[in-house]
């Protein structure tokens, strides 16, 4: 288990009229190498939870153990936590600040106290991992490239810290379909090549269905479901009750089945649905 959370609670503004329980007795564990989709409504506690995972927020009570290190222990050095968990915020391109792309990506690795050579190697590798050409871009200003590229630079800045767990908070927000697909592909490649654990926070069920192996569903500060992606999307009614959706193809297959057709209802992607339907339609025709 790379992440173990035990009875985690967090209360905003305790003791004031604005008191709000943001996280309510959360206990979960995440396996090393898993790709987790974290879904839930705005205000369900997703952001608060992920910010706990790299020590930006201290819990009111409870324990978080990451890769064997108790990060809620005040003795634990921040640098140790940052090495283990990388967090990419929403609209990360709004945090770029250096004159060159190289310098901006190097900011994180430098803060980890690495040597100049190591930093360079990491920047190179990170840029390659997110699909940016090192030679042509390293000396360019991060402010004069396209929106999608800016976002890759920002993601590379965290990837270059080589975290064991990479958390991405809505990495495709505000991008057009092309930009979105490109970023999702890079994330997938990164996951396959680097053997890391990824937590993807997203509102897009299609994206989650395409990428995540397991899903965590949050609602009102609690984790209400934690299971394999396929299993989660089987509970469409439960998800709809809390205002979440399932991918359109999954919905379609369910509806098709309800009309008396004997098909698998847990197809997550168009390809899966296509195969299943071809099998079914050819089968009924031949029979």
């Amino acid at each position, binding site marked *: 288990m790379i992440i173990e959370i035990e009875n985690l609670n967090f209360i905003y503004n305790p003791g004031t009229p604005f008191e709000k329980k943001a996280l309510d007795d959360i206990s979960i564990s995440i396996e090393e190498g898993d790709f987790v989709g974290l879904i839930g*409504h*705005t205000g369900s506690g997703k952001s608060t939870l992920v910010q706990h995972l790299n020590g930006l927020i201290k819990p009111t009570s409870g324990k978080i153990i990451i890769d064997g290190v108790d990060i809620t222990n005040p003795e634990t050095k921040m640098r140790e936590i940052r090495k283990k968990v990388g967090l990419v915020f929403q609209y990360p391109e709004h945090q770029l600040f250096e004159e060159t792309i190289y310098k901006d990506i190097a900011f994180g690795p430098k803060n980890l106290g690495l040597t100049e050579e190591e930093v360079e190697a990491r920047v190179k590798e990170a840029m390659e991992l997110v699909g940016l050409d090192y030679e042509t871009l390293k000396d360019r200003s991060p402010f*004069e490239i*396209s*929106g*999608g590229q800016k976002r890759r630079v920002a993601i590379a800045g965290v990837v270059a810290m080589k975290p064991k767990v990479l958390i991405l908070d809505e990495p495709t*927000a*505000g*991008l*057009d*379909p*092309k*930009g979105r*697909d490109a970023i999702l592909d890079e994330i997938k490649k990164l996951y396959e090549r680097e053997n890391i654990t990824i937590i993807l926070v997203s*509102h897009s069920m*299609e994206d989650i269905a395409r990428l995540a192996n397991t899903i965590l569903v949050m609602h009102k500060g609690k984790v209400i479901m934690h299971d394999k992606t396929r299993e989660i999307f089987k509970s469409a009614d439960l998800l709809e009750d809390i*205002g979440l*959706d399932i*991918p*359109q*193809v999954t*919905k*379609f297959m369910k*509806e*098709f089945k309800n*009309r008396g*057709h004997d098909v698998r209802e847990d197809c997550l992607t*168009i390809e899966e*649905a*296509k195969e299943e*339907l*071809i099998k079914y*339609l050819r089968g009924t025709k031949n029979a």
Partner: protein
Amino acid sequence: MKNDIMINIENVSYEYKSYVDDSIQLAVKDLSLQIRRGEFLAILGHNGSGKSTLAKMMNGMILPTRGEVYVNGINTRDEDKIWDIRSKAGMVFQNPDNQIVATIVEEDVAFGPENLGIPPKEIRKRVDDSLEAVGMSEYKKHAPHLLSGGQKQRVAIAGILAMEPDCIIFDEPTAMLDPSGRKEVMETITKLNKEKNKTIVLITHFMDEAVLADRVMVLNEGENVLMGTPREIFSQVEKLKELGLDVPQVTELAYELRKEGFDIRKDCITIEELVESL
């Protein structure tokens, strides 16, 4: 006849200087488009397709390099009438935070009519009516920064409505919102079109929003590449994919099955339609 056209765009081009190498680029290329009164038109295109430039030309925020744009029959080059044009063709932008001026919801909604010099009593009425129309009446005394994204965007829409425009241009109004915010805003937009008879121009890259329109125009590199009803547009799966745009998952599934030799309607855009046609 002429009165039926809300916005008339005639052979419009827009040039700008690239800041990378100072070369002259064309954001919009010789484009013509007539938007009918009461129509709901969606303009679909990816980033850099020229859709925002086109939008800003529709209320004289920018003037075309070549060609003419008429709003309500008035040329946007007519400087004396620019305020008439802007109050008749209102514009809602992407980031709700950056278009709210005042610290109290109702005072923000009043900003437009105040600029137009409307008498206070009339402003009061317009503010109340506009907030009612977007379903935000109960928040009129609230501070905007405490509202959700969808609510802020509805306040921004009310601010435009209070100028009593005939037409509202939405420049990616949902790009920064979560699913519930997107839903709220899209419901408001369709309601304004159906119930208040406002002409709507919706610029977006979400295909599920374009499906709601009467007519869809697909813009690529400043050119009108496809135009038709949502059904006509989305059945062209290959073309849209080539342009880097999405199609509804069921439409794509239908397309894939047709390729395999199944006889399915080409233009399914809803789950229901695909279920029926199988």
